[in-house]
């Protein structure tokens, strides 16, 4: 469900979020986000209100980063009672110029955990658009706030938000052959950053399972690059395939049940699929040359991949059983590392030409190609859950690597903050 976008209201507000809007793109929906309230009283109530205020600020910070939703700056004096969470005074919030309202509460439970409830309203129509409650431990209040942000974003922008997602990438330290690389994972806002490998072996291309419970990545620990699967919770790890063939380019199916990857047999790189819990790999391509970088469609029925069978790297689509292969990229240059968007509408890719590597998108039928970045050292696109943002790797001057976010709205890529250099980002779906 979407609200009507009102451009004229935004002009007077002049926030940073609005300044990033490009001409011709729809303006953001303004949402009022007064501080979350609490049904609790006394010192516990004060505690809950304090957490609610922290959560409110995080929700505003989340939504401010989107081009589609613009939160008003919250005011601590905009207190409302618990019954008003579900019965807000619409006229009051309408007068702020907002078209939508987010209310909510934080309640302490007898087991020590928190219930966080969030409600999103259409102010013009005076009705509720969405509601959801989350039970979290007090230390996980950030996740509950991210869930509220996602609820508002879904209701107003019509897509899942990227707020409660994780990013895995390769953390790089040092120079030359002494450069160490570790698999790192963090919340999409940079919190809870940690390393999953210790740097003793070279690693590349971490790929998260849809809910970020596992990560498949390529390790050079045995001397030959091969895919390993790490359970993030338990730390247990195993090789994806039980032989010592060179294997790489893993990616989970959208339901997490399968992993597609490349494996060398002699000089030939083909695409295989295997259950994410193990089993016998099934070969999907047989052409001579390099077939690699497979990525499932969101319904799991098709796979896009790159192949140089025609003489140069191009994008191909086949059914998930390997049948009905057909080429889908015909532009100039070489096309590589395709990744299907979560909404199925786009395929992101790296285009390689005389002027370097850039990130672009194209419809699965081969039309509508757009290049989103200027390069020259960009590669490895990965989609945000909203299907409206892409994270990628950029190699800058001096070989420094960094992670960048770019929207489909024509805005400039912006670097995301990580503790050191980083490459090969992978963005998870929305967490449970």
């Amino acid at each position: 469900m979407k609200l009507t976008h009102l451009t004229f209201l935004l002009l007077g507000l002049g926030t940073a979020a609005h300044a990033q809007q490009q001409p011709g793109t729809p303006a953001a929906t303004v949402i009022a986000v007064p501080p979350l309230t609490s049904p609790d009283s006394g010192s516990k109530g004060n505690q809950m209100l304090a957490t609610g205020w922290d959560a409110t600020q995080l929700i505003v910070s989340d939504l401010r980063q989107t081009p589609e939703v613009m939160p008003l700056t919250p005011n601590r004096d905009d207190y409302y009672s618990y019954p008003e969470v579900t019965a807000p005074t619409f006229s009051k919030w309408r007068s702020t110029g907002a078209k939508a309202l987010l209310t909510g509460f934080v309640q302490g439970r007898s087991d020590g955990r928190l219930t966080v409830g969030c409600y999103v309203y259409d102010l013009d129509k005076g009705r509720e658009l969405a509601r959801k409650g989350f039970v979290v431990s007090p230390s996980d209040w950030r996740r509950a706030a991210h869930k509220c942000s996602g609820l508002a974003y879904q209701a107003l922008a019509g897509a899942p938000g990227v707020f409660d997602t994780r990013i895995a990438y390769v953390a790089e330290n040092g120079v030359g052959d002494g450069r160490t690389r570790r698999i790192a994972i963090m919340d999409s806002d940079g919190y809870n950053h940690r390393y999953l490998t210790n740097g003793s072996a070279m690693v590349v291309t971490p790929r998260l399972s849809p809910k970020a419970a596992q990560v498949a990545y390529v390790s050079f620990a045995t001397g030959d690059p091969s895919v390993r699967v790490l359970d993030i919770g338990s730390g247990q790890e195993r090789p994806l395939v039980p032989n010592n063939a060179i294997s790489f380019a893993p990616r989970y199916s959208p339901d997490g049940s399968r992993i597609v990857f490349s494996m060398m047999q002699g000089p030939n790189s083909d695409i295989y699929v295997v259950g994410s819990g193990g089993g016998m790999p099934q070969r999907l391509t047989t052409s001579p040359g390099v077939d690699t970088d497979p990525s499932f469609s969101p319904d799991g029925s098709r796979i896009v991949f790159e192949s140089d069978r025609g003489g140069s790297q191009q994008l191909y689509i086949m059914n998930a059983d390997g049948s009905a292969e057909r080429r889908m990229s015909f532009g100039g240059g070489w096309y590589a590392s395709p990744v299907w968007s979560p909404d199925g509408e786009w395929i992101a890719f790296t285009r390689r030409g005389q002027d370097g590597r850039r990130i672009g998108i194209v419809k699965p039928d081969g039309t509508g190609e757009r290049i989103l970045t200027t390069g020259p050292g960009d590669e490895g696109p990965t989609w945000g859950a909203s299907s409206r943002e892409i994270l990628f790797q950029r190699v800058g001057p001096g070989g420094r690597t960094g992670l960048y976010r770019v929207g489909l709205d024509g805005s400039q890529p912006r670097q995301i903050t990580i503790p050191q250099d980083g490459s090969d980002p992978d963005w998870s779906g929305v967490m449970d």
Partner: protein
Amino acid sequence: MRKTLLFAALALAAGSASAQLPFLSRRGPVPQPTVQGIDALRADFAAQSGGTTVYFGAETVGLAAPARTVLAAQAAWLRRHPEVVVRVEGYGDSGDTRDHALAVGARRAEEARGYLVLLGVPAAQLSTTSWGKERPGLGRSVTVLVRAS
């Protein structure tokens, strides 16, 4: 750097000692050593073969004439040293995307391995791997030693 490296790294067969021998003179037929240090073997291999590295053109996996010359010399040396196992390590192009570079490196390694086998080196003496574009600027002198099983 459009050129691409392919390293042949040496390893001693089981039971070899690590003691080094004086550098070997190479004027006449060479008596096969029974025990030789790994560093001396590597130096000898490089000196006799004209190098441990062969080069490919950008984006190609085929062997050019200079590469074949070096590989032929390497094959001759390896036939004289059946106790030595070699790991052929392929490298992709630095401007390539990560996974394609990995595959191209493996293809180049296979191409070189196939040529060595064609020239009579027993396949059991050879293994291959790829570094893709993961070690940019790695010098030509670098060798990786692996222990023969």
